[in-house]
């Protein structure tokens, strides 16, 4: 978070049809509704055209990376929930994959499939929030209400499975926190039956809507080369024509066993990003369906690693060692061997990575999150320069940032 520093800014003379005039600096945010959080952007304007944009962030910085260094490996999971609050399960997964890599442990297939199922439901819910709020920014109120209606159904599934609607902390090191409760299949099944029709419904509201097209088509164009050089990932990169998806390129959690398409567009504008996200929701539903069919009825939901992974509840009541391990894990934690590990997943916003370094103690030496919102946001000045001021809102919206993820 900083002001404009030494950069010369504002009050420059520009030539117009009626003679030379001064540019204007507009301070957008940090409490602007379309920034979906606290993002401040300094805009230098010539009339309504943006000449220069300087994002200013850090208003939501909570020092999560520093806090992680002061907690044991399992304690830090609750912090990861709170970074990208539209994708807490994804954050848990990235962190747990990094810890598991550091420890060199395998997760049972049953837990892997259920992780995939939960994370894909989370992707749908995140895209629904994006779609609804973006539609509101563009002036379409009704889509928001429909999107949140369906998101509520997903949150109800989360609450049923994990006991929490949003900050679930459900994915744990070595597997899952709890055995999925009986009856989850029926609920997910019901949701899967309902959802495709609902996505069609959003599309009838928006895809052919003339105002929607007018606000999004040809706005904020990013070429594939620029998107890659600016390290953009996720739907923003795929809308520019590059089919890079971490789930495909570097599969984790058994994604190589799932069949799904990676939707891409070539236009690279805001409308392409919208189409990619809508198509992704449909693909996610396919993956959820497959994960449900693959999910074995019997088996462990957590790996067995004495002294690292908490033992099963029943064991704790009958075996003394299990009780001791349980006590030690939750009081002093466990110590992975020294080394570094970087694990990444495809979050709804792009590549979410977690870099962990261990020095052989019970607390991480360094825990860094490669948050997709932070890195995608740095292309904003490139997107909005030369556009109209109303297009800035469309551009921020379609990058799909979550400020908790940007500032951490």
């Amino acid at each position: 978070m900083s002001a404009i520093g030494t950069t010369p800014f504002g009050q420059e003379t520009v030539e117009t049809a009626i003679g030379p005039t001064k540019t204007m600096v507009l301070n957008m945010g940090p409490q602007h509704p379309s920034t979906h959080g606290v993002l401040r952007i300094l805009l230098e304007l010539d009339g309504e055209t943006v000449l220069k944009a300087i994002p200013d962030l850090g208003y939501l910085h909570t020092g999560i990376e520093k806090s992680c260094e002061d907690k044991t490996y399992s304690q830090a999971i609750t912090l990861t929930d709170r970074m990208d609050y539209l994708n807490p399960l994804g954050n848990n997964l990235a962190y747990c994959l990094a810890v598991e890599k550091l420890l060199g442990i395998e997760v049972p297939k049953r837990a892997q499939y259920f992780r995939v199922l939960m994370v894909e439901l989370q992707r749908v819910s995140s895209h629904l929030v994006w779609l609804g709020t973006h539609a509101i920014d563009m002036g379409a109120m009704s889509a928001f209400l429909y999107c949140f209606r369906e998101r509520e159904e997903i949150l109800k599934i989360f609450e049923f499975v994990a006991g929490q609607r949003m900050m679930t902390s459900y994915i744990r090191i070595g597997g899952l926190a709890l055995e999925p409760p009986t009856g989850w299949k029926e609920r997910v099944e019901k949701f899967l039956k309902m959802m495709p029709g609902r996505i069609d419904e959003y599309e009838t509201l928006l895809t052919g809507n003339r105002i929607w097209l007018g606000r999004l088509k040809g706005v904020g164009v990013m070429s594939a080369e620029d998107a890659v050089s600016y390290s953009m990932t996720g739907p923003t990169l795929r809308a520019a024509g590059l089919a890079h998806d971490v789930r495909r390129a570097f599969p984790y959690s058994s994604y190589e066993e799932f069949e799904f398409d990676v939707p891409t567009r070539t236009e690279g504008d805001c409308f392409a990003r919208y189409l990619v996200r809508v198509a992704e929701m449909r693909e996610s539903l396919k993956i959820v369906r497959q994960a449900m069919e693959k999910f074995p009825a019997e088996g462990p939901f957590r790996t067995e690693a004495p002294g690292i992974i908490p033992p099963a509840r029943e064991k704790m009541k009958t075996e003394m060692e299990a009780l001791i391990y349980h006590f030690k894990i939750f009081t002093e934690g466990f110590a992975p061997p020294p080394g570094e590990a970087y694990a990444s997943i495809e979050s709804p916003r792009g590549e979410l990575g977690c870099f962990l370094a261990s020095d052989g103690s019970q607390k991480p030496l360094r825990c860094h999150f490669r948050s997709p919102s932070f890195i995608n946001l740095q292309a904003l000045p490139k997107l909005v320069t030369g556009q109209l001021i109303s297009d800035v809102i469309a551009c921020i919206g379609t990058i799909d940032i979550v400020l908790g993820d940007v500032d951490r």
Partner: protein
Amino acid sequence: MTDSGGQTTNRVVAKLRSWSANAIEEVIEYRGDTTIVVPRKVLRSVAEQCRDTEELKFNLLTDATALDRYPLEPRFELNYQLVSIPLKQKLCIRVKLSVSDAVVDSLVPVWPGANWLEREIFDMFGIQFTGHPDLRRILLPDDWEGHPLRKDYPVEGYRDIPAIATRYTRSRP
């Protein structure tokens, strides 16, 4: 990763070594990931090689971060995570820096996406990047003192500590 991963690695390392014998100080294979430790002086040219060489094509810089091994020296390690989208391979480049001379070439000329990542490292660790177009704090206010992710910076910070508690916190470096 399996054998195929190992082969890719060897190819990458061999390619870089054939370009310059001194380009790689050390190769670390850990849990299926490859990390090459490069001397600070050649960081930018190694990065350019990684991006431009036909067989490497590391076109995406996904992440850059630092870690602090205080009180060991050299205490800082910079880690750059590279991905080749066309060849589906990964590589981590590591540079070691000491606190007295924590300066390194910026990679913004190679990947513009390094801009904010390097600003974050500067903000949190106080590492300077030469050739960075706009090196200033990004997450913390301009007038913030110190670099919080350094190990000698207390977790509870220096600010807002009641006078009685300051006695028990470590003294300021």
